[in-house]
């Protein structure tokens, strides 16, 4: 089998292509990620603790400030200051033309936002949670994701869908679903899922600037969590590249691939692995579900020989299924043990606390699987 070409110089990605005037070309300069400046921020001074909520709020404010075509709409985003206060203060600062309360009418306002994007605006469509976006998923997939391709490239759709996704505490089945796999499977979409405050700010800004439809899957339980934010990330030109994962913790014995809130759980598990067994687990924060950073995952797998995926979606046909399949396709010869996954359970999320705990990955679950995988 011909070895797949995996590692291409990143510069090639940005290389310009011939384009006809009818097909608009995205000016990369508009959102060239400041990777170089971003590297090594951890050692710089001026680091500040910022909650994910404030990081998102900052990203929204900066993008609303810099681009008049951008506006945000959704349920309770304006006068109420956001159901989860992510849009706090934006109405006062930008006025009702740019920060728009909608009725509870997901298919209607999501479709309207997509239409406005087709007509050249850059809407940010907030869903109070992504559970409610199911009412509008046809607009996200059939109207937003596919139109550019179907039109032969003459009809772009620059829109950002955002809101809390996945597990939240004590809200039962209809409000606790992870949609990463749903949106991640759709050609034409880009999907990001931030964990830390830097992720949240950098990825949301990248999503708003990206000329394609981008789904930003946030997590309600992370909103109030504070993370250190580098000086570079505090600036208004801070953008993270979509499609690049981040190695949150380097290691040589085991690769743990995770996203969103499970990154934090994985890091805790990795710390315990080190403490109890002296094992060095490498934790990869995916950041981007689509496109997936296959290169970083496979490179890590080649180094450690073992891979585990940790996520909170349903187990069947999910993000971890995909990661495991990729591990086999690209890294089979490097694996020294079967790849494993830790996921949400295949059950509608129950309400009672104990049962709920059994439905989602906990640090213990991750630790248990890791020790089994490493035969510790």
């Amino acid at each position, binding site marked *: 089998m011909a070895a797949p070409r995996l590692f291409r110089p990143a510069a090639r990605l940005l290389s310009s292509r011939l384009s006809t005037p009818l097909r608009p070309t995205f000016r990369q300069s508009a959102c060239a990620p400041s990777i170089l400046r971003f590297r090594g921020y951890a050692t710089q001074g001026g680091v500040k603790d910022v909650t994910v909520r404030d990081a998102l709020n900052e990203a929204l404010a900066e993008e609303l400030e810099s681009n008049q075509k951008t506006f945000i709409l959704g349920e309770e985003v304006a006068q109420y200051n956001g159901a989860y206060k992510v849009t706090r203060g934006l109405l006062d600062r930008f006025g009702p033309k740019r920060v728009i309360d909608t009725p509870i009418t997901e298919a209607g306002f999501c479709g309207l936002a997509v239409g406005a994007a087709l*007509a050249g*605006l850059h809407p940010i469509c907030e869903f109070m949670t992504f559970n409610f976006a199911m009412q509008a998923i046809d607009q996200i997939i059939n109207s937003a994701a596919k139109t550019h391709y179907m*039109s032969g490239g003459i009809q772009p759709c620059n829109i950002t869908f955002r809101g809390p996704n996945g597990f939240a505490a004590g809200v039962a089945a209809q409000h606790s679903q992870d949609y990463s796999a749903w949106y991640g499977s759709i050609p034409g979409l880009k999907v990001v899922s931030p964990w830390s405050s830097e992720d949240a700010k950098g990825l949301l800004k990248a999503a708003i600037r990206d000329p394609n439809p981008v789904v930003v899957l946030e997590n309600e339980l992370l909103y109030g969590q504070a993370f250190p934010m580098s000086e570079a990330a505090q600036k208004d030109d801070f953008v993270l590249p979509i499609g690049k994962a981040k190695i949150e913790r380097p290691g040589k014995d085991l690769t743990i691939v995770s996203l969103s809130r499970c990154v934090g759980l994985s890091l805790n598990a990795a710390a315990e692995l080190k403490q109890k067994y002296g094992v060095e687990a490498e934790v990869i924060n995916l950041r981007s579900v689509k496109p997936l950073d296959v290169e970083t995952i496979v490179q890590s797998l080649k180094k450690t020989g073992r891979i585990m995926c940790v996520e909170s979606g349903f187990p069947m046909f999910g993000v971890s299924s995909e990661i495991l399949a990729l591990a086999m396709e690209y890294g089979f010869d490097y694996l020294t043990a079967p790849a494993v996954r830790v996921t949400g359970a295949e059950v509608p999320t129950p309400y009672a606390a104990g049962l709920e705990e059994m439905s989602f990955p906990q640090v213990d679950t991750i630790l248990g699987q890791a020790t089994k995988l490493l035969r510790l």
Partner: protein
Amino acid sequence: MLLNSLKSARAVPWVRPVLCTPRRSLAHVANLEDVPTEDDKPFSVPIAEDSFDTYHLDPPPFSVETTKRELRNLYHDMTMIRRMELAADSLYKDRKIRGFCHLSTGQEAVAVGIEHALTKADKLITAYRSHGFTLMRGGTVKSIIGELLGRRDGISYGKGGSMHMFCESFFGGNGIVGASVPLGAGIAFAQQYNDIKNVTINLYGDGAANQGQVHESFNLAKLWNLPVIFGCENNKYGMGTSVERASAMTEYYKRGQYIPGLRINGMDVLAVLSAVKYGKKFVQAGNGPLVYEYLTYRYAGHSMSDPGIAYRSRDELKQERANDPISNFKERLIDWGVFSEDEAKAIDKDVRSKVNSEVAEAEKMPAPEMKMDILFEDMYVRGSEPQQRRGRTIDETYYQG
């Protein structure tokens, strides 16, 4: 319930006396005097009195200011759509067009009447029966037929097909019934946001009229006073289901409830023209949205696989064909002395040869090459594509650039 809503609505300032004339088949309008000899000199032509039914709205003028040139153009454009659709019909029967192909024969007056009331700065979005609208908005017969044939030089580069054609100020061809209606509200929203005083024509069928998101769009449009004219093209059947079997209330122009409405004889291009001109002024004056209903009829089946006779009688079809928008209009223009029978025939001949030659050109266009570059192109805006995309196997993974 309906009466209640009418009564309560009467208290609202914009409510005007309801004019409800029973619908009859279009009466012939009396001969016209004073038709100028010059092609571009404006004069007024009458519209039959039974062309409109109103809902909380004054009727549009029963005459329209026009010129001989414009009248001939209206006839020319309707004939062009008819010819193009017939060409598509025969290409489909020759198995050269694949998949879905929804023809608009019988409904030409709607597309043509609307377009002649608009400028190119006005926006239009429609559902899947879109060939006529694409042509009117600026697509060429060659590019449309090329698209139907799946050719590289088709209007969507062979990627969209019958239901997905776009051009400037035309937002498609949309394949999901009802889903284009909120999009149209969004396009109008963008016009309002950018402070552009134009109108969005937002079309859907009688089948789509029962979709929840159509009503969600009505609410948002009225709530935010959007410059949009919703338009239900009522061709009496949603696929094979007649309006009576699908809708608890078939007066679609009243479906906006709190939005003024107008039912238009969609078989008369002049009635459509007058109504849309009038609606455009109404909307531009900041009065908010309108809900129009264009009463029309589809001669062909729903799509090519439907002979169109299982759910309607041949007699009905024959009766409707007697009310043909093109031949009726031609007779009127001859009666009015706008053109002679021979001149009409000359237009027909000219259109036929134009369509035939463009179809021949389209048939000569190459199909898209079976290359990864072409398969994966334009999924994302150029310059912002992901680095790699997977093909059918790992060996077919496509690397950008």
